């Protein structure tokens, strides 16, 4: 777009070579704060189906882009002063479901190695889709989320309480659990995966299998699989010196 190539006064214009063009493109990526070009995405069949995280992030993108356009517009609660939002879907899921001794739980593990060092976490959410439960009709459910701080093989793992949400067994939609408190551990153990464990109980304290409560895990359709989303505020990065 824009006007054609301009001949700056005094210096002859010449075409950049292929290698120089690649260097210039790398500079543009660096100014935009983008990494080098990653591997191409999953095969078209898989990437054609809308996935939960990209759908959610696209909504955030439109919200952030409208913030960019209207200067001074009140930023959205979540977006606030975030410079960087990362979503994580690549996870391992483990169940202690029916047939095992109580309490039942569902555990999710996320690979956090992509989190750039030095970014301050301002908020982090675990999002899981819930459909109406056909087994617990009108009861009230308490969903609690813990971080698995240390797995112990001869006894219960060390857990760190993160959030509690109460909802009706018949409710449907995205359940958002606040896991911001877990981010302190990320920064300490950067290389470590994030382990999250989810319990469901009825009003009278009975443990319920999360699947029976209507909470969808990795087996759900792509657009309803659980994911983590994390909001960062960039540390005041110094002005870039052009290379």
């Amino acid at each position, binding site marked *: 777009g824009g006007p054609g190539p301009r001949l700056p006064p005094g210096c002859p214009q010449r075409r950049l070579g292929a290698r120089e063009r690649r260097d210039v493109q790398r500079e543009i990526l660096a100014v935009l704060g983008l990494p080098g070009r990653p591997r191409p*995405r999953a095969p078209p069949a898989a990437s054609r189906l809308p996935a939960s995280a990209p759908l959610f992030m696209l909504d955030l993108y439109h919200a952030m882009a409208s913030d960019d356009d209207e200067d001074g517009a009140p930023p959205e609660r979540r977006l606030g002063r975030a410079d960087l939002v990362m979503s994580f879907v690549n996870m391992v899921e483990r169940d202690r479901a029916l047939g095992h001794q109580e309490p039942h739980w569902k555990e999710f593990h996320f690979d956090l190695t992509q989190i750039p060092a030095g970014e301050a976490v301002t908020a982090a959410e675990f999002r899981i889709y819930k459909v109406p439960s056909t087994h617990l009709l009108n009861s009230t459910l308490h969903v609690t989320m813990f971080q698995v701080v240390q797995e112990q093989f001869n006894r219960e793992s060390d857990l760190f309480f993160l959030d509690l949400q109460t909802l009706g067994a018949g409710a449907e939609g995205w359940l958002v659990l606040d896991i911001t408190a877990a981010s302190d551990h990320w920064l300490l153990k950067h290389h470590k995966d994030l382990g999250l464990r989810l319990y469901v109980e009825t009003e009278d304290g009975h443990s319920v299998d999360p699947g029976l409560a209507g909470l969808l895990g990795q087996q759900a359709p792509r657009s309803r699989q659980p994911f983590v989303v994390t909001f960062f505020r960039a540390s005041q990065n110094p002005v870039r010196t052009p290379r």
Partner: protein
Amino acid sequence: AVRPLRRRQPKKTNELPQDSRLPGIFDDVHGSHGQQVCRRHELYVSFQDLGWLDWIIAPQGYSAYYCEGECSFPLGSCMNATNHAILQSLVHLMKPDAVPKACCAPTKLSATSVLYYDSSNNVILRKKRNMVVKACGCH
């Protein structure tokens, strides 16, 4: 003696009208020597042309704009200028070899946001400040 009350003089501001609008079709956008006066020009950075749309989800590119044009005295009616730039333009008239003109640069910038896949196929949204020129002026 009781001094007659003086009507409060409206505070004189010696700033130019902070009018950061772009020159309208009736504004004289050509300086004294037919040179364009300092203003914002269209510049579109296309991720499509750069071949990055296989991993940048949105946008396809963005309007960055750029500033170009003369900062000659008297400054045009549509231009922003700091007081210092006005002073420098005046001294440049007296000593053109010793003091350069003020230069045309952004006076207001805004951010742009990019949504992309990282190498683990996670979806990332990044906001980069000071990537879009909103207004130009003389500095």
